[in-house]
């Protein structure tokens, strides 16, 4: 592919690449734990609910990242506070929080369109528009990313233990609820960043896709995180550049950035599950087998 020279000199492009890169890294780290803890639905619910925050931010005219953050954190707080144990209750509660949050988003977006006449707010909030991120957001976004990464690094071991077995974790003196709460906060931060990048309802892709792909290949959590980060970064940056370049191939309108990123993530997932399935099969047939094949 021949790249148009100088896309790095483009200011919106630089902002998109740095915010997107930060979001991809955080999502990879948080995402692997989230998939292992079977919280994909919760993560998706947080993302969708955060769109209400994004819409509110447009309504009152503050930084949209703050809106995403506030609403994602509030939803995570409600879900942790309700403290439901059984899987069925958790599924229901997540669904109800999701439904109520989306209802709120519907109302706020309606106000955006009628009161403030920001007609495109729905598209920007839900599907993201990376090339329109204001430069003022970059420091805040990178700070949020750093906090989320730090929190995940601090709790990574107790989190892993309590994911595998809550009883084992309690026996080791781990405060399971505090660890779960910290993980939820990190998840909310990741969701907000990712909502800023690919939009609220697509942020699940960035959070779950690379992590699910990496878990098909990696055998250990650490290598899964590294692989997820690699896939996430490659897809985000690749997708951004692809969208930027697509303005030159397509007549008039380019492809949406979010579409390019999510498609690359999905391709990575398909490739990973194909490779993972191939790697598993010979091992079953020849336990001593030819690994180098």
């Amino acid at each position, binding site marked *: 592919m021949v790249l148009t020279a100088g896309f790095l000199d483009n200011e919106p492009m630089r902002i998109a690449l740095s915010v997107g890169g930060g979001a991809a890294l955080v999502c990879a780290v948080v995402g692997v734990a989230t*998939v292992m803890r079977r919280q994909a639905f919760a993560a998706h619910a947080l993302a969708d609910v955060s769109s209400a925050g994004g819409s509110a931010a447009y309504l009152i005219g503050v930084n949209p990242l703050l809106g995403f953050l506030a609403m994602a954190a509030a939803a995570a707080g409600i879900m942790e506070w309700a403290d439901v144990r059984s899987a069925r209750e958790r599924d229901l509660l997540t669904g109800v929080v999701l439904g109520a949050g*989306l*209802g709120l988003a519907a109302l706020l977006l309606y106000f955006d369109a009628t009161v403030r006449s920001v007609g495109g707010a*729905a598209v920007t909030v839900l599907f993201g528009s990376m090339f329109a991120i204001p430069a003022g957001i970059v420091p805040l976004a990178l700070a949020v990313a750093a906090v989320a990464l730090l929190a995940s690094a601090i709790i990574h071991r107790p989190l892993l233990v309590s994911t595998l077995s809550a009883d084992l974790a309690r026996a080791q003196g781990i405060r399971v609820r505090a660890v779960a709460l910290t993980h939820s906060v990190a998840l909310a931060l990741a969701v907000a960043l990712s909502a800023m990048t690919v939009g609220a309802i697509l942020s699940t892709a960035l959070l*779950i*896709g690379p992590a699910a792909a990496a878990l098909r290949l990696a055998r250990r959590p650490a290598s899964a995180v590294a692989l997820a980060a690699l896939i996430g970064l490659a897809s985000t940056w690749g997708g951004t550049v692809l969208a930027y370049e697509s303005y030159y191939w397509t007549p008039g309108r380019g492809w949406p950035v979010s579409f390019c990123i999510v*498609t690359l993530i999905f391709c990575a997932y398909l490739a990973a599950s194909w490779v993972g399935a191939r790697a598993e099969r010979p091992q079953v047939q020849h336990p001593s087998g030819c690994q180098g094949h």
Partner: protein
Amino acid sequence: MFAPFMAHAWIVATLVALVAGAVGFFVVARRAAFAAHALPLGAFPGAAAAGLLGVNPLLGLTLFAALGVIAITQLQRGERREVASALWLALSLAVGTLLLSLSGQYAQGLYGLLFGEVLGISARQVLGVAILSALALGLLALFARPLLLDSLSGELAAAALGRARRLEWVFLLVLALSTVMALPVVGALLVFSLMVGPASAARALTDRPWRALGGSVVLALLVVWSAIALAYLTDWPVGFFVGLLSGACYVLGRLRGPGAAVQTA
């Protein structure tokens, strides 16, 4: 609010609530809230595609809902259920953004598809919704017993009926049908609150499965009717009231009963 131009809205909303209440009962019993969310939302690109090609949106929605059923069941083979739903959802939404951006009617079309458009439903649409709801309810009635048994204990159902796999297909198919019909009215994002909220409350009110099913339908009807009335009076989006009232149903259910007595339903 009972003016002639609202008649279609009332009819369609009533049909949607009947089906969503009934299907919602099984969604709650099978812990399939994510699938119930992913199928409607994942079908919305179908409407965008139909808009682009200039065909009936129901056609596009049906196609994408069917694709969703296939994708989720296929991805479930090697992956956890919720990850399968998440992946399908992400992919179809991404395709949706592309289609909407190509069709150039980004903002206006999007809002209606996601959050619903109760006004301006044509007589043909009413007919389509009526046929699809009859189909969905018929399928549900045919498979209600095995589906319930399968929800309570997958192993028991597999032993007694030997077709647990097929039941998942049937369930997702019913979900897809109800999705397709409800989407243009209450919107992709809120078909689902109508399934989860009323059913969860009904479950807390009684521990008899069939009574809970009936309660879920009644509550869904109440939610939709009040939502339309409130939307008419305030001029605010219907979706907001559906989400709010469904959430209220859940909270009432939790206050009324701990839900623990209702492990069966």
